[in-house]
């Protein structure tokens, strides 16, 4: 621990101040028999004795759920919530995650009675509103991506990848040969290789060139009739647009392969360029990134997959069709379909939110959004490039990736800087990837369009101050954070002897 008495009181920390936050145990620890937060209306039909009705399928041991009052639940979760950082509280510059404003109107419309309480199997004649929403969103996403067809079914980006790769596979299979391998750049997100394997492909690593981009020569070398295609993120995970994208696509296409685009970085493109126009065959979007549906502490998301005409027959069932009378219907009769990737029609609640986002923006707003996202990233790049190393120099789009190379000699790594940022009142950037940053020392910053200049200036000041601390007083960084209600966690023990559930004490009698 550093000699400085109070690292929280650094003059450089202008964004936050300590304030008391309430302690709170586990909800189980509030439990006591006889407390209850529920009341059911009186039963209006004859009661049924479970053991008589269910015989030995009847439950005899209670699930030891907590017994608490309603107010205690409000207090419990309210208190817990105050321990979280959130986009509503401040900048959340997680690269690749696109932590943007989650508009409140999206939440309101998703909760409308006729939408929130719509059953997936209710007859189509009383589901036209829901179908219309699905169709409208589909059309708009097709226009935004420049593709020909779409499925909204995938539950998140990773499942979108799976769907897209299965489309490729089915298509190739229909051509006679599904092939064996998928090329995945070493800069790719972890879901890309994991997905390819789930689809029965071997992953072939594609090394990036010295600019962090697809190495065209290597690609030419590695591409052949065994390769089903390429999974490309564009802009890539360094935030750089693969400007040779037309060449890349041509190389793949020439050998009969297909190009899959991981659309996690669509926030750099919407309204400015369309993957369908630059050679992409199939791609997913993350509605919980580009289209502002909330991350919710980890999910839910939604990962629609858009594709070119040739892949359309393989889209998962059902697809929406317009009937002769103008009404909408689900079509299940699609013999070439890959099947389903999940039940029902996907994360409808997220579709509603994404459509509301597009409606609120319109063409001008979407373009301006993209421009502001790119502007913010480049501004940060400009203001930090003298104190943090830029491992790859190509122009940035919506995110910028530095490395910790200048700080590492003092023992300060990207993870440490990240922790110190918390003392400065920010959520850290992404540290986990891209792995091609030497030493894995990536500092991956995506501000999104949602940050005002003032917040970004504070972020820049914090990053610069930490760079200075790395010179003057690295210890303060290595032991950070200092101001949070818990400090660094013993993760080793958490992994070595995992404790993954509450162990009931005597207080609640075991049966």
């Amino acid at each position: 621990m550093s000699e400085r008495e109070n690292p929280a009181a650094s003059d450089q920390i202008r964004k936050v101040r300590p304030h008391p936050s309430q302690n709170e145990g586990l909800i189980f620890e509030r439990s006591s028999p006889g407390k209850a937060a529920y009341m059911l209306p009186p039963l209006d039909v004859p009661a049924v004795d479970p053991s008589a009705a269910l015989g030995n399928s009847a439950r005899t041991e209670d699930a030891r759920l907590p017994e608490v009052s309603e107010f205690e639940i409000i207090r419990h979760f309210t208190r817990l919530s105050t321990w979280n950082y959130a986009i509503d509280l401040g900048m959340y510059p997680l690269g690749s995650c696109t932590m943007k404003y989650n508009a409140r109107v999206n939440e309101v419309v998703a909760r409308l009675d006729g939408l929130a309480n719509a059953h997936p199997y209710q007859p189509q004649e009383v589901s036209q509103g829901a179908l219309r929403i699905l169709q409208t969103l589909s059309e708009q996403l097709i226009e935004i991506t420049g593709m020909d067809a779409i499925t909204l079914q995938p539950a998140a980006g990773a499942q979108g990848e799976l769907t897209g790769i299965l489309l490729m596979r089915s298509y190739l299979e229909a051509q006679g040969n599904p092939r064996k391998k998928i090329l995945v750049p070493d800069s790719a997100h972890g879901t890309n290789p994991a997905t390819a394997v789930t689809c029965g492909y071997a992953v072939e690593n594609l090394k990036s060139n010295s600019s962090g981009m697809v190495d065209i020569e290597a690609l030419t070398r590695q591409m052949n009739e065994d390769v089903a295609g390429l999974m490309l993120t564009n802009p890539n995970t360094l935030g750089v647009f693969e400007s040779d994208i037309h060449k890349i696509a041509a190389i793949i296409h020439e050998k009969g392969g297909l190009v899959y685009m991981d659309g996690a970085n669509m926030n750099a493109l919407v309204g400015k360029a369309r993957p369908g126009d630059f050679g992409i065959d199939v791609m997913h979007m993350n509605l919980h990134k580009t289209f502002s549906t909330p991350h919710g502490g980890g999910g839910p998301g939604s990962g629609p997959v858009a594709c070119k005409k040739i892949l359309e027959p393989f889209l998962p069932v059902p697809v929406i069709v317009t009937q002769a009378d103008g009404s909408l219907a689900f079509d299940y009769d699609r013999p070439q379909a890959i099947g389903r990737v999940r039940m029902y029609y996907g994360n409808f609640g997220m579709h509603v939110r994404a459509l509301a986002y597009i409606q609120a923006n319109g063409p001008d707003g979407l373009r301006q959004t993209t421009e502001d996202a790119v502007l913010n990233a480049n501004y940060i790049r400009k203001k930090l490039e003298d104190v943090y190393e830029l491992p790859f120099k190509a122009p940035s789009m919506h995110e910028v990736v530095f490395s910790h190379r200048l700080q590492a000699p003092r023992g300060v790594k990207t993870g440490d800087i990240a922790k110190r940022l918390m003392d400065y009142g920010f959520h850290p950037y992404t540290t986990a990837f891209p792995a091609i940053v030497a030493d894995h020392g990536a500092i991956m910053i995506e501000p999104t369009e949602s940050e005002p200049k003032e917040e970004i200036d504070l972020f820049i000041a914090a990053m610069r101050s930490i760079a200075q601390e790395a010179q003057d007083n690295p210890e303060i960084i290595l032991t950070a954070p200092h101001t949070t209600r818990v400090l660094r966690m013993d993760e080793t023990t958490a992994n070595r002897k995992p404790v993954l559930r509450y162990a009931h004490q005597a207080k609640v009698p075991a049966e």
Partner: protein
Amino acid sequence: MRYLPKSPEDRKAMIAEIGVSSIDDLFSQIPGEYRLRRDLRIPRAMAESEIVDFFRQRASENAAGYALFLGAGAYHHYRPVIIDSLISRGEFFTAYTPYQPEISQGTLQVIFEFQSMICELTGMEVANASMYDGSTGATEAAMMAMRLTGRDAVVVASSVHPEYREVLSTYAKYQGVAIATTKFGDDGRVDLAALDEAVTTETACVLVQSPNFFGVIEDVAAIADIAHKKGALLVVSIAEGVSLGVVKAPVEADIVSLEAQSFGVPLSFGGPYCGVIATREKFVRQIPGRLVGETKDKKGRRGYVLALSTREQHIRREKATSNICTNQALLATVATVFLSTYGREGLKELAQQNLAKAAYAASVMGVKTQGAAESKNGAGAGKARVLFSGSPRFNEFVVQTSEDPHHINHRLLEKKIVGGFPLQKFYPELGNAALWCCTELNTKEQIDAAAREVNP
């Protein structure tokens, strides 16, 4: 644009600071021919009031306010209002995955509580932080069983939700997994003899659902015996979580995949829902998805972290246990609030009400019959029949009628009632049959009204 926090001045200053002459310079890396030079062809920006009106209109085109007798994997339970009050706090819904525990203890502790409750409910020892939904959860559970056993074949009961089975097929198809489907008997339960035959020493797991798609509770212990005898694992999928208030936990299973939608997650036309996988402690390193574990900070204070992440794609890449990344954390939060609200006694009482409502509805809708056999000659004009009525069931039951259930449903719609789910599509062998569901939300009055149309 009203969400964007920049003035023209701000933009000008930042562009100047960067040293470019216009914003378009920042897009110069995109080859000119791929730059979009026109507006996207989508409608002009809409005012908030217009957006609300648009969706209100869409909502009014759906069956809002109808009495609902559909289940079939998506259940209509009362959602205590505190759920939305709590998850509407920005600190929950606008947070990311809790990768940074020092400033994510809220989400982490909630998920730890969720895992603990799921263990309590399922009788398992560990549960993960959530899966996309019940269908992918069951599929991932089967894949987990394959990793655990090193085997490649799966036996699945035909009484598992048909769409779950479709998802399993999609995932399995390209991984060389052999899927055998095994039939149900006249009692609507897995035909144990047929199962015994289907399970071999190549079988990684048997996948059943309980209560199954017909609402019938399976004999999990007997099925487990059959699976275990051949060294296969038993995966039990549960689509209706509320059943666990009165139905014995599937403690004989090796892996349980639960769809937690019933625990306060809105129907929302089919998603987002909340899957979760629970299993025995010894299998934990093959569980897919995130896990939250308890630990201490460097001052010894209790806290929570993401644990065992070396299983996951962001570390293990192509060797990960699954490609899942984003999960359903906010809905796990919903379920945690729901289960805290009902609690030990409440979930029991809730389940008992469901049981009673379905029993009553079955009693007024049709005469009891044991099997599906009668369906073959169901053209008679007699009263509707409740199939599988000798088997234990929870809040769903199958009604067989002489009339096509689509016709019945059409009549019911005019009375603002959404009738049971016609089974022809998935189970043509059952003839004019429909799957009805009754929860605590179905009043006697609604049930009686529906029954009158089923037996007009």
